[in-house]
């Protein structure tokens, strides 16, 4: 049982991200790559994700302003975006990406626009939640490892 109250809070917050469907097992895979030599690996990957995918979001926004829609281009952008989102375990964002691609394939412009709005909401919500999580993780400090008593 975690004695440190901040650590307990962190664990609760982390659990809620999974229970509420924001994150999937891929996030755990990233956590397992974090160690003493790379203590901030997960945060670094997530930061890179938001920086990189922000450009793709902008590209999609601009593409949705051009009529008629180039569904092949939109699908290609979203393929990229979905790949990155999947790699960090962004479950809800990935689901909206999948739906968007289905609308691209069925040439449904309305569906694309509607789904894209929802995707941006999920994307922003996840960002806020992860920023809060990482801030709390920094405040909570590193996990104490077992050591022999002196």
């Amino acid at each position, binding site marked *: 049982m975690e004695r440190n109250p901040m650590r307990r809070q962190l664990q609760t917050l982390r659990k809620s991200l999974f229970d509420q469907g924001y994150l999937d097992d891929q996030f755990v895979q*990233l956590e397992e*790559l974090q160690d003493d030599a790379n203590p901030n690996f997960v945060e670094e990957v997530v930061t890179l994700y938001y920086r*990189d995918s922000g450009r793709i979001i902008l590209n999609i926004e601009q593409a949705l302003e051009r009529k008629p829609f180039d569904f092949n281009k939109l699908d290609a952008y979203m*393929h990229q975006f*979905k790949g990155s989102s999947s790699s960090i375990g962004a479950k809800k964002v990935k689901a909206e990406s999948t739906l968007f691609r289905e609308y691209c394939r069925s040439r449904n412009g309305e569906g694309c626009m509607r789904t894209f709005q929802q995707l941006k909401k999920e994307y922003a919500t996840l960002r806020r939640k992860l920023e809060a999580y990482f801030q709390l993780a920094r405040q909570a400090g590193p996990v104490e490892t077992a050591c022999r008593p002196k």
Partner: protein
Amino acid sequence: MAAQGRHGGQESNKMTALVVDDNTVNRMIHHRLLDNLGIENVAVVNGKEAVDIHCSGKTFDLILMDMDMPVMNGIEATRQLREMGIRSMIAGVSTRSMEREIREFIEAGLDDYQEKPLTMSKLISIVHKING
């Protein structure tokens, strides 16, 4: 036993890998996965760079090849590498799930195919194939 790898002509017993992926996030994760297994690795951003690095004389024990990339995709890069006589383990990694697309990638000359996202257990299964 780790296969012999070469970097710039120097022999090393450490396994070596080339990550071929246009996605920055995936390159970072694949680099870390390989690092964790003690595999020296470099990354390039498309199939043409993968071919070029081999033309420069470098070889790798393992190539993690993404499918969809600009300039030259993974299918074409795999074909060219095999035509050049490159016998390294080439593992395709992609988010594609359609059988036809995966088959085309495999027929280009892959030794293995894994669906993204790549995990430690998937990478270990690839590495075990190298070690036999």
